[in-house]
């Protein structure tokens, strides 16, 4: 079985670790916001028995510095580049998408509609997607939160608003306390990722794949080829790796090899293609080129 493998936004810095990025079919940046953000005070990460929590708080250099300094260096990687777009209002999302619409090196705009570590925008996910849709012709992927009563409903809404694809899922808010009952993270709660998120992510992918006809990048606790297979079987067209990269930076290559040798052709593939992968003439070709 051949499946495009991406990193999950915020889980890899391709400039700090180009060797890790090169294993991927596309690189996804950490979320970029209009203005620079220092992020939350440390400690920002904590391991739990079933996953990890993070409260990075969208630390990033801001749109201008990103476009001026990071983008040209990222372009040198000569691989499909997804920029994760964040903000605190529809205007923020529109501002960034409009600015990046002209950047030839940017393949896909992934809208982070769901960071649990910052106060979100007042608008609905659909309104944010619509705002981005208006200002760019690039493929727009909506990254949804699992923390919603009916994720399929959100999927339909962003599809109607013009999203070209879905990225599922972001972290869900979690909390961990230390032995003296203080929160392990300075911020308090954090985004929960890793193995414990996996059943929740699979349910979201499954529900959205049935609800809308968009390609889905599935993620959440995937750490093996078998788990990647399940994400595809649930309805995803590609898999993104996040937390697993911290313990095994070679996971993308390892999982690709395992998947291809396993050759689980039986797995139902949605047939929907991820946008802008290299020589993406056909799903098969996309991957035979890796």
């Amino acid at each position: 079985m051949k499946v495009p493998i991406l990193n999950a936004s915020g889980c890899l810095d391709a400039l700090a670790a180009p060797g890790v990025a090169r294993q991927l079919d596309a690189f996804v940046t950490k979320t970029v916001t209009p203005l620079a953000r220092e992020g939350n005070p440390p400690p920002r990460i904590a391991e739990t028995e079933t996953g990890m929590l993070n409260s990075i708080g969208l630390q990033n250099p801001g749109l201008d510095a990103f476009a001026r300094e990071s983008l040209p260096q990222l372009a040198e990687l000569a691989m499909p580049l997804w920029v994760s777009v964040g903000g605190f209002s529809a205007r923020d999302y529109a501002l960034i998408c409009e600015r990046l619409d002209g950047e030839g090196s940017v393949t896909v705009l992934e809208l982070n509609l769901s960071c649990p570590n910052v106060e979100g925008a007042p608008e609905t996910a659909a309104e944010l997607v619509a705002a981005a849709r208006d200002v760019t012709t690039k493929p727009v992927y909506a990254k949804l939160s699992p923390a919603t009563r009916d994720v399929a409903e959100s999927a339909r809404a962003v599809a109607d608003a013009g999203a070209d694809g879905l990225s599922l899922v972001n972290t869900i808010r979690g909390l961990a306390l230390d032995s003296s009952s203080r929160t392990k993270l300075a911020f308090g709660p954090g985004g929960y990722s890793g193995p414990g998120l996996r059943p929740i992510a699979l349910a979201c992918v499954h529900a959205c794949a049935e609800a809308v006809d968009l390609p889905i990048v599935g993620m959440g606790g995937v750490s093996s080829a078998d788990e990647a297979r399940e994400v595809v079987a649930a309805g995803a067209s590609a898999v993104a790796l996040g937390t697993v990269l911290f313990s095994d930076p070679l996971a993308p290559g390892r999982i690709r090899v395992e998947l291809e040798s396993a050759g689980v052709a039986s797995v139902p593939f949605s047939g929907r293609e991820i946008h802008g992968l290299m020589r993406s003439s056909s799903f098969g070709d996309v991957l035979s080129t890796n």
Partner: protein
Amino acid sequence: MSTSPCDTLSFDGRVAGCQRLAVVGAEPVGPYTLLRLERGGLEPGIPGQFFMLEAPGRLLPRPMSLCLAPPGELAFLIDPIGPGTRALCALRPGRAILALGPLGNGFDLELERPLLVAGGIGIAPMPYLAEALRHPPAVLGFRSAHHAQAARLLPGAEVVVEPRFVTDTLPDDPGDVLACGPTPMLEAIRALVPRAQLAWEAPMACGYGACYGCVVEIAGRYRRLCVDGPVLRDAA
């Protein structure tokens, strides 16, 4: 399990290895454990650099400074303070763990009069550092005589045990201080010796710049200690 082939990754220019290393042995040193791994294809790196070591049964690896680099081996001195370090201290020959490194910035070794200063488990990087600097003078501080047993890893070092602190024993003109230890100790040394090279700690998820979890405040900005450190000078 035995040692696997070595994969190399370039981090920001510098090359690190990623390899499953067989456990050679694990020996108690006072309250600490000296974990010896086959070196495989990994470079020991510059003193003060660190490795991310798989902690069996835990989701995330744990950052560990290289303590010693005997032929064909990499050795780490580990303080069992929690689940990950306890899992590492419990390793026995026959097991193998994934190791990534060397990572981060080590100590600058171009020095006139090096003085090594360490507190508690902060002794970990000192034996390998002392070798590189041809055994300069060293001051080690420990919480108890039991902890002070670790001093045997640094023969000839001056040892102080609480209530005395290493800072009580620093000469007026300490020269080029290279220090590692608990944050309060490092801050005290920075106050006395602004030019000291200090090896800091922070919880780390990845160790190679991917997660932004390990930030420390440097000149008013949050910087990744695993990329800009762990050894810092005139800063943090």
